[in-house]
């Protein structure tokens, strides 16, 4: 999911940077007034946990791997704006400190993992809980679908970005089906982990699931 340097042309890199910066500014303005020690602590600790979880690469025979991304989980627990800040912190540290994901592709990686994954996961979970109520069965299925579709749509976006970028010789007709299909398969695991964690938090500290508020 982390696009390295050299995969995106200047135009694609610039557009994704602008989109991510604009969204980031809007997200900050939305949460600025509600910032308090509790929300800051939640964002920090969840970012640390997601960063650690992303280090568990599960290599698959054939030379590829899957790892938990966590965008949908962050948004379900903290809402889309604080969820964005959580994932931004993770993706930014991965890029700047460990060069995991290119600096030229940081805008695209933030767009995929901190914006699209978060928004899709949040909207699916929030809609399901609003429609069917705050029951464990609803939470479980909604979180699974949020995690699964979140990562699948983020994979689709990744396919579009590298497919439209002239730096990558294959076009979107190749990159989109491959990236979307692969992430749809691997996303089942993302959905299961998201569902298990959300259910765990819901049973012990339901007030921490901010996407259920209001």
């Amino acid at each position, binding site marked *: 999911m*982390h696009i390295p340097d050299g995969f995106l042309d200047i135009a694609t890199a610039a557009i994704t940077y602008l989109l991510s910066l604009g969204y980031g500014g809007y997200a900050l303005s939305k949460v600025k007034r509600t910032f308090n020690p509790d929300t800051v602590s939640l964002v*920090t*600790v969840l970012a640390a946990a997601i*960063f650690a979880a992303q*280090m568990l690469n599960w*290599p698959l025979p054939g030379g590829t791997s899957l790892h938990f991304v966590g965008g949908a989980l962050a948004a379900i627990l903290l809402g889309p704006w604080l969820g964005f800040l959580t994932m931004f912190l993770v993706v930014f540290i991965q890029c700047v400190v460990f*060069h995991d994901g*290119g600096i030229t592709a940081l805008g695209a990686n933030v767009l995929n993992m901190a914006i699209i994954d978060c928004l899709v996961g949040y909207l699916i979970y929030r809609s399901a809980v609003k429609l069917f109520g705050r029951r464990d069965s609803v939470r479980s299925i909604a979180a699974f679908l949020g995690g699964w579709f979140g990562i699948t749509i983020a994979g689709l976006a990744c396919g579009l970005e590298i497919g439209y970028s002239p730096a990558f010789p294959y076009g979107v007709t190749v990159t989109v089906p491959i990236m979307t299909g692969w992430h749809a398969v691997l996303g089942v695991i993302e959905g299961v982990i998201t569902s298990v964690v959300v259910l765990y938090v819901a049973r012990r500290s339901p007030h921490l699931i901010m996407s259920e508020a209001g």
Partner: protein
Amino acid sequence: MLFFKKALVAAILLVLVSPLFGVVLADLVGYHEPLDLAAEAIGLEDLTESLNWTPLLDYSVPGLPAEVGYIVAGFVGIAIILGIGLLALKAVGEQRSQRA
């Protein structure tokens, strides 16, 4: 508070077992990043190493075995995130005291 402690303990445990997945199993199955493989197959140059600015490239620490370096890198990452969080906490505390 209990949630924070549990989440932090979980993060530390995940980092401690992470080399098993990020290094040992990866070597066993000949793992490479999927996008790196795609780039190699079509002759696209991955600029990660030539554009590199960090000594902790790909969660490694110079001079340490890969497994140990992976753990150290994990703790460095968590420490930086917590450090940023502490700075943010301080800033929020100052803002609130100014408003009061």
